[in-house]
């Protein structure tokens, strides 16, 4: 994943990167609950876990997951405009497996930002149209209003 120039640039631009090797720091695996490699955790600056990626992913999917992590971190600090923007980047891709999740959370972010329930209903329509078999479409189905 990391030899990819896009991934390396994205990581350096957006994160403080820490590599923990199983043979060098086994106690850190226990401390953060990592049970398999590769596992990537995204923590906010206060050390709270905001996103977890387990297993290898090709570069494009990995980048989408990193963007999801940044979006979830923004959501957690109540920066709903930033969260909506970052979820929206992933949601715009029809190819990414992360897109349905991103559509869902982009809608939730918009709702949190605007208090407009129409954002949730629109999210349900988008998911049922673009990703009808996804679990995220099922989750959003309660917003059919």
């Amino acid at each position, binding site marked *: 994943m990391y030899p990819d*120039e896009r991934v*390396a*640039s994205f990581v350096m631009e957006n*994160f*403080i990167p820490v590599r923990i090797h199983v043979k060098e720091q086994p106690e850190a695996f226990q401390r953060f609950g990592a049970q398999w490699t*590769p596992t990537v955790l995204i923590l906010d600056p206060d050390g709270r876990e905001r996103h977890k990626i387990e297993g290898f992913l090709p570069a494009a999917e990995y980048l989408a997951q990193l963007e999801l992590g940044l979006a979830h971190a923004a959501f957690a600090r109540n920066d709903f405009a930033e969260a909506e923007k970052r979820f929206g980047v992933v949601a715009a891709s029809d190819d990414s497996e992360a897109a349905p999740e991103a559509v869902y959370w982009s809608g939730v972010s918009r709702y949190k930002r605007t208090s407009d329930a129409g954002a949730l209903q629109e999210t349900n329509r988008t998911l049922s149209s673009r990703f009808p078999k996804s679990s995220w479409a099922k989750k959003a189905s309660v917003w059919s209003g």
Partner: protein
Amino acid sequence: MEISWRKDVDQALQDAKRERKPLLLDFSAAPM
């Protein structure tokens, strides 16, 4: 571009607070 990996989690957490940046913890078994 190469990633400048750090090894000290607690130092990185302090830097994360100061720089207001999230941490990426990569748990690996690959040869270093």
